[in-house]
């Protein structure tokens, strides 16, 4: 049972990270390989606000959320906006370069040492007993709840709000959407902002659950097969992909060889992609556009 709980928590983490990839990819066909770094930047912003501005944990988290929105917006406006119209590969490489830049900058500002961010905002990450034999930490519970809320919110936003509709339309056919008077730049900026926000949220929660250092950005890479298995442009797909990858990882660690937990998800990814090249829930026609 504890294993099941572990799978659910890990699924939530990967899903929350993966939805950041999906949001940006869905509208602009750009794979944001700096997502892991942006996620950890969110967590470091919490370190900064809690140390410098607000000592109250809730205020600090709220401020961090605001800052992460600013970060997402500036990444698009200052950098990715210039890459629209460029070959997709160049845009993807730009995000790789951004990742390297952010990594260096974060070490520069916060140092290479691991920090205990939970202790900084006096967050007690107590162990909560769900049943006699199943326990999860407070932060992990928050992670599950937040992932659920974020997905609910995003799905409602995309399917019910006017801007959500515009985002989907731009994703399906950018040219047509632009001709219909949709401001593509606003749509892209919105996608980057939402993506960075959800990523930062994941970063804050996962670092509250353990510690923070720059290497935590590797979670971005781990959540990657999750987004792909599900199909890079499908939110429900990302959720299911996260479930598949998380279950694989946990079960491999528990029953087979933990060292395979890096390799096997990618092999499964290949197998799934060979059967369904666009992922489990991805849109088929987009293949020609990649």
């Amino acid at each position, binding site marked *: 049972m504890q294993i099941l709980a572990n799978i659910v928590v890990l699924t939530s983490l990967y899903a929350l990270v993966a939805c950041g990839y999906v949001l940006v990819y869905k509208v602009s066909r750009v794979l944001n390989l700096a997502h892991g770094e942006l996620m950890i930047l969110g967590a470091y912003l919490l370190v900064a606000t809690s140390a410098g501005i607000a000592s109250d944990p809730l205020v600090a988290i709220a401020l961090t959320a605001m800052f992460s929105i600013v970060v997402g917006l500036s990444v698009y406006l200052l950098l990715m906006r210039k890459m629209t119209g460029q070959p997709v590969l160049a845009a993807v490489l730009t995000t790789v370069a951004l990742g390297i830049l952010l990594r260096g900058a974060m070490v520069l500002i916060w140092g290479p040492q691991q920090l205990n961010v939970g202790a900084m905002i006096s967050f007690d990450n107590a162990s909560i007993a769900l049943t006699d034999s199943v326990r999860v930490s407070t932060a992990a519970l928050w992670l599950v709840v937040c992932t659920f809320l974020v997905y609910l919110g995003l799905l409602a936003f995309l399917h019910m709000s006017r801007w959500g509709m515009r985002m989907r339309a731009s994703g399906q056919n950018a040219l047509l959407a632009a001709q219909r008077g949709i401001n593509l730049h606003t749509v892209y900026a919105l996608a980057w902002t939402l993506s960075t926000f959800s990523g930062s949220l994941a970063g804050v929660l996962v670092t509250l659950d353990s*510690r923070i250092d720059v290497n935590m950005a590797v979670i971005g890479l781990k959540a990657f097969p999750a987004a792909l298995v599900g199909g890079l442009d499908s939110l429900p797909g990302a959720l299911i992909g996260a479930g598949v990858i998380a279950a694989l990882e946990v079960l491999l660690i528990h029953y087979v060889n933990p060292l395979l937990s890096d390799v096997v998800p990618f092999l499964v990814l290949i197998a799934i992609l060979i059967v369904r090249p666009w992922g489990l829930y991805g849109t088929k026609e987009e293949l020609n556009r990649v």
Partner: protein
Amino acid sequence: MKIIQFAKSLVLSATVAAGPALAADDEVVIGVSAALSGSAAGTYAAPAEGLKLYLHLLNEAGGVNGKTVSLVIYDDQGDASRAASNAKRFLTQDDVQMIISVSTSATFAPIISQATRGKVPVLFAGSVCPAETMPPAKPLLYCSTGFSAVHDSIAMVDYLRDRESSDATVGFSAMGIPISRAGMEEAERLVLKADMKSAGVEIAPPGTADYTSFATKLIQNGADSVLSWAPWAVQIRFVDALRKQGWKGNAYVGHLAEAELEMMKMKDPNLFTLGTNVMLFEDSEATQTLVNAVKESGSNLHPESILDGWVGGIVVEGVLEQLGEDTSAEAINAVMSNIEIDTKGLRGGPIKWTDDNHFRETIYYRAYRWSDEKSAMEIARDWKAYEVE
């Protein structure tokens, strides 16, 4: 135009960087390859600072017998190719008389390979001690670092047997790098030899972000206590993961640079560290000197984290004291292969090297823990000497 200027500056950079560093007669040039950035910087950047700080102060005080030290520090990011490049640069461009490694075990192969070719001694100070420095030691390779996978494991198992019941089940956690795996598999062997049970060795691949599942497995295998030997970030996240699942057994981890500060925050009386360095909560003359030096340097580093590099500096000083007129790499190696260095109260005893043993003849371990009663760190067991065979 921008690009042309850039190209020009590139050419310029190559020429400037390549100017041969000429050593003055009374100056010993030492090359330091350290993981100052990249994923391992959290562990190795601080000891590298400690080394630099100690030798800087040594130079300011006029050096040893009129000899000063010139440090050439290159970042290797904990990456093997960069370390190889650095080593070549030390030997061909900087003409160093000694190389110091403060980096990951991934960088050892290129450093050892190049230094052996160039017949320059290598001191591992802050890097984990490679097997090549232990008996039978390979020539030219020396280690002053306070931790070593196999010896720490021996001391940890020995201490664990003191504390735990004789039929306890012990779990082990390692990181998926050869040196950590070797240490923990040795520990498991020792535990089984002592007729205790093993809950298995959990090996987490490098870059694991979530240790929950690894911890679950050890708990379900009935681990009463857990041993871990890996970089601090890995060890401690593993302990976190165990505690998050309500596990209350004793955890034994290696005493690494970050230990003291972190343990003071964690306030976990069932967490023990085994190591060869002192913690700085004990006010001694040696610890005072170190703490003051860090303060005066204006650096924001924690004094605890630089200790192994600082000891490396003490070793260099000790070698220079014994060095005569001849300051060649060969002469330095000759001094190093037979020397006893006083660790000035920062370790349990001296570092003694012989022809066959470039690690330590006797290694002294101390156990520390957090005490709830004192609400402070305490010594759980004082120095115990282990002969190195």
